[in-house]
């Protein structure tokens, strides 16, 4: 087992453990902190895939900006007032059953999947480096890039209107 494989297992188990802790922990602030750990573990995965740009952006945007937003919201609402809604046993059972079904389907589907095309794309690929990503973004994927600018414009206009009332 090479270094990459060992790192992969460490990062994966870390990501899974912290993801479970997000759901399990009672205190929302703890959940947010575990979420940050998930993002870091996933960024580590991106690094293993040689996608440095994605790793950095993931940390800046998700672990940085979005987490700060989460914490702000938690700060603004009064946590003591909000009681944990007591769901009935049936709803919990149905939730567990559907979750298990989804897990089963995913495992079965992934175990039979033909992954050859995907493997050739990622192993040894330099597609995630900043230079290559920039080149492809401004040549092949230029139109989607431009569309996203209109998307942001309209999202901003919408946010301003809702905020201004």
């Amino acid at each position, binding site marked *: 087992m090479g270094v990459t494989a060992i790192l992969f297992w460490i990062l994966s188990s870390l990501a899974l453990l912290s993801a479970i802790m997000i759901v399990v922990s009672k205190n929302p602030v703890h959940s947010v902190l575990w979420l940050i750990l998930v993002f870091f573990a996933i960024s580590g995965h991106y690094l293993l895939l040689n996608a440095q740009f994605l790793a950095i952006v993931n940390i800046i945007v998700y672990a940085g900006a979005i987490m700060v937003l989460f914490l702000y919201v938690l700060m603004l609402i009064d946590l003591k007032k909000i009681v944990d809604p007591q769901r009935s046993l049936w709803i919990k059972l149905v939730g567990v059953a559907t979750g298990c079904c989804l897990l089963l389907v995913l495992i079965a589907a992934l175990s039979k999947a033909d992954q050859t095309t995907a493997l050739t794309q990622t192993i040894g690929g330099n597609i995630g480096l900043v230079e290559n990503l920039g080149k492809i973004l401004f040549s092949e994927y230029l139109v989607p890039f431009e569309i996203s600018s209109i998307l942001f414009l*309209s999202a901003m206009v919408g946010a301003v209107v809702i905020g201004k009332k």
Partner: protein
Amino acid sequence: MLTDFLLLMKQELLLVAIIFILVFIKLGSKERSNESLLNAINILLLINLIAGIFNSQTGTLFGDMFNTNQLFIFEKNILNFGVLIISLQSYDWLKKHKHLIEFYLLLLSALLGMFLMLSSNNLLMFYLALELSTIPIAALCNFDLEKRKSSEAAFKMIISSAFSSGLLLLGISFFYGTTGTLNFAEIPATLNGNALQIFSFVLLIAGFGFKISAVPFHLWTADVYEGSPISVTSFLSVISKGAVVFVLVSVLYKVFEPLSEYWYTILFLLSLLTMIIGNLFALRQQNMKRFLAFSSIAQVGFILIGISGQSLEGTASVVFFILIYILSNLAAFGVINLVSSKCDKESIGDYKGFYKSNPQLTWVLTIALFSLAGIPPTAGFFGKFFLLMAGAAKNNYLLITVAALNMVIALYYYLRVIKAMFMDANENPIEKIKIPFQPKLAMIICVAGIIILGIYSNCYQYIFSLIK
């Protein structure tokens, strides 16, 4: 090269131009009255519609990212037409609104998203365009600024659309994992029907199902339709639904053709559920907007039957039906819009005795409801007829029988509204409403369209000739 670009993307570029004109008017310091702005915008939209009809060319651009053909151009013209009608109908409401320009900015960005979604030839581009066509609408739902329900509708819209986009994106990423390509032209060759592909395909269909509000993905529909301003509700129920249906047809028929046995089963179940549940819930609605929301869910069930036919007739009947559906639903929403903006009444009970005070509006609403129910002289009958014909090609008579039974149930609840308007007495009926010029024009166009398309059959043949 440049002329190619200008001609092929003509409709999109015109919309972008209008959006930028609006941004500059908003940023400029000159004060303009809402009436003059509305007239100017309506003229711009009319120019946009007319320019879309002439000199249309087909081809691909940007290395297969964007493609266009005669059918797409026709579909975009239908959407343009629907937006113009909605704009005329909302004249009365927008006249007093302080965020008039933002309304059109968001509306036209959503429309641009739909155009790009129709023309997209790549899953990534498709996803971005789908987002562009939903996020502005979520903001639009909040445009009744002082009403709580409107904010609630916007919130529900953004949450449910984010959830459905999440499913769609998960499906797309699995898909990329198994096929190694995002290009629509290359996907069919790589489809082999393995388990992961089918699972991701189910996720994609779920994403589509949310947007066209097929049961069991319909739960957001009634609340969002009820809370939003009526102009936005009519946009949601006809334009955005129509656009996604157009895309669904072309994606299923072209890209996922190798998986057709799977999606036939999915469409079969979805359309059964959608028709039955949509109709049963529509029976007990008291609010006009909720009533039309459930009736529009039931209509989607019929559309899915047409799509399941998997033939040229399938495409033609769906496009034809959407055209008729836009006309009939917009005629109905036009009347409800006027009544709501003049006297703030929305429940079916308020419409009792409507004929005594407003005979003209009653006739418009009656013709629209007849067309939605599918009663022969109106166009709605032929729309439904062609859909069922296309679906019957698969020899699945259970589906057609259930559809026919559902048409009977639907007839009952549409007639209930008509009976209330014509026959029931009411102590304080809706007073006589003076119809302004723009909504009147929109209603005349809609009613004329419903009647002409019911008599004159060349339109269906024209659509059919576009596909071949």
